[in-house]
C-alpha cells in the first residue's frame, strides 16, 4: 500500500466542514440519510442540496491535491474501458480514463475509497492514479462508454 493512502482516511464530511462548505447539522442529517438509504455521502449532500458536486470536488482537490477532471469533454479510449468491469465502476462510482503501461488513471467521485482503488489495482494489475470527478459526470460516462462497448 502506498504511504499517502494511509493518510487520506479523513471523512469527506469532515473535510467539507473544515472548509466551511457545510455545517455539522447538515453532515449529521446526511449521515442519517446514508444509514437509511445508502449511497455516497458526497452524493447525498448534493441530493439534499447542502453542497454542490463542485464543492466536493474542490474540497478534495484542495485538501489532498487530487486533480479535478471535468469528464463531460473527455474522450476515453475503448481499450482503457475494458480494464475495469462495468459493475465495479457502477458500485464504486469510478471510471478508468487512461492507461499507460502499468499505470491506470481513474476518475472517482470519492478518491478516498481505498477499497475501490485496491480492487481496481487487483483487477488490472496496475498502479492507480486518481482524479476527482463529479458523480453525475462519472455516471454519464459509464452509461456512455459501457453501453457503447
Amino acid at each position, binding site marked *: 500500500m502506498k504511504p499517502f493512502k494511509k493518510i487520506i482516511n479523513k471523512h469527506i464530511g469532515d473535510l467539507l466542514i473544515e472548509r466551511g462548505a457545510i455545517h455539522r447539522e447538515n453532515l449529521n442529517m446526511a449521515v442519517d440519510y*446514508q444509514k437509511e*438509504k*445508502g*449511497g*455516497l455521502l458526497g452524493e447525498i449532500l448534493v441530493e439534499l442540496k447542502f453542497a454542490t458536486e463542485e464543492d466536493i470536488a474542490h474540497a478534495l482537490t484542495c485538501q489532498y491535491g487530487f486533480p479535478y477532471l471535468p469528464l463531460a469533454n473527455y474522450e476515453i479510449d475503448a481499450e482503457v474501458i475494458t480494464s475495469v*468491469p462495468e*459493475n*465495479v465502476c*457502477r*458500485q*464504486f*462510482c469510478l471510471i478508468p480514463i487512461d492507461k499507460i503501461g502499468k499505470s491506470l488513471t481513474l476518475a472517482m467521485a*470519492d478518491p478516498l*475509497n481505498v*477499497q*475501490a482503488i*485496491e*480492487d481496481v489495482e*487487483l*483487477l488490472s494489475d496496475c498502479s492507480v492514479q486518481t482524479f476527482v470527478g463529479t458523480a453525475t459526470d462519472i455516471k454519464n460516462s459509464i452509461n456512455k462508454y459501457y453501453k457503447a462497448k
Partner: protein
Amino acid sequence: MTIIFKKIFLSSRRVRSELAIAFGLILLVVLVFLGYLLPGASSWFETKTFLHIILVIVFFILILGFTIIVQMLESVIKMSRDAQMIAEGDLNREIEFSREDEIGQLGAALNRMTLRMKENVEELKSFSKMSETINLEINKRILILSNLMQISNLIAQNAELMQVAEMAIDKCLSLGAMTLAVFIFKDQDNGDYSVHCISGRNSPQLLDQGIKNLRIKLGEGFLGKTILKKEVVVIDQTSSLSEEMKEFLRQFSLRNAVIIPIILKGNVHGLLLSGNEEESFRCSSAERELLELIAKQIAIAKGNELLNRGIEKLEVTDRLTGLFNGPYVRNYLNEEIKKSVNFKTACSFVLLTIDRFKEYHESFGHIEAENILAKMGSLIKANISSSDKAARFTDHEFAIVLSGKNKRQAIDVAETIRQKIADSFSDEQDTGKRLTCRVAVTENPIDGVRAQDLILKAEQILKKDK
C-alpha cells in the same frame, strides 16, 4: 249371606242355570235309581217289570245331562286351545264366541286382551326399531369420532400434510355416502389452487383426464368463486344449478357435491370437495358436519405445516459447530451485497474446505470427524471480527461473509485462518491426522453482483485447486 246363596244356587246366569239343569237331571237319575233300588221309597217303582223303561229313561236323562255339560265344556276347551295358541305367540288368532253367557264374555274379554297385547307388542316393536336406529346412529357417531381421533393422532405426530390429507380422504369415503373426495390446495409459487390429493370411484379416470393440471384462479369459475366467498356449498337434489355449477359437476363426473373451504386464520388455503353420483341424494346435516370437521382438521395440519416451514426458516445455526448454517449464510450474503451496492463498499466471501476429509472420516470414524468439524468451527470463529459471519456451509465446507472488506482484506483473513488450522494439526503424531485446508476468496463487485455468483466462483476455484 245372599251372595253365598246366589253362588250356591247357581241361578244368576245362564251357565249356572245350564249347570243346574245338568246337575238336576243327574240328581233325578240318582233319585229314579234310588226309587227303583229301594222298593219302599215309592210305589211307582214297586214292580221290576218297568226296569227296562226305567233304564231307558235313566240313560236318556244321563245322555241329556252329559250333552249339556259337554256342549258347555266344548266351548271352554276350544277357548282354552285358542288361548294357548295366543300364549304361544300367535297374536293374530281370535277366539270365536257365539254364546252370550259368561263363556262368551270370557272369549270376548280374551279377544280384547289379545288385541291390547297385540297393540302393545306393535308399540314395543316400533320402540325397538327406534332404539335400533338410535343405536346405529350412536355407533356411527362413535365410529366417526374414532376416525377423527385417528386423523388427530396423525396431526399430533407432526405428519406431512399430504399424509394427513390422504387419511382424511379415506375417512370421507368410508364414513359417508360420498364416492369421490378431493383436496384442493393453494400452490405456494403462483397463488393458484390445484388438485393435490384425490381418491374415489372415478379418480383413475379423472387423473387420466388430467384433473391435476386444473388451475383454479381466485374468483374465476365455480370453485374460484367458492374460495372467494369462504362458504360451504352443498349441491344435491334440492339445489338449483347454475351453468358454472353444471360445468364443475361435469368436470368432476358428479351429480351431488359438498365443497368446504379449508380456512386458517381467515385465509382459504384450500377446499375439501366430496361428492357422489346418486340420483336422489340429499346431504344430511350429519354428513355435512362430518365433512366440516375433517376440513377443520386439515386446516390444523396445514397450520402445522406452515409453522414447521417457519421454524425451518428460523433455524440459522449449525448444531455441531455452533456456526450459522448454509441457507442462512446464503441469504445473509445476498443482503450484504445489497448493502455494499448501496454504500459503495465491498463485500467478500470466503469458502474453506478441509483436505482429505473423507479419508479422515473413514479412518478415524464419525465421532472423531465431528470433533474435527467442531474444532475447525471454533478456530474460524476465533479469527474473524464481530462484523463477519461464519457458517458450516456444507458437510466439510465452511463459509465466511466479510461485509465491508474487499478482496485483499478477505485474503488476509482467509490466509490467517488457513495457517492457524494447519498449525493446530501439525503436531499430530499420526500423519493422517495432520489436516490442512484450502480457501477461495471472491468479492462483490469484482466477482459478481449476486450471492450465487460469488459462491459459484469460490467453488470453481476450490475445484481447480484440488
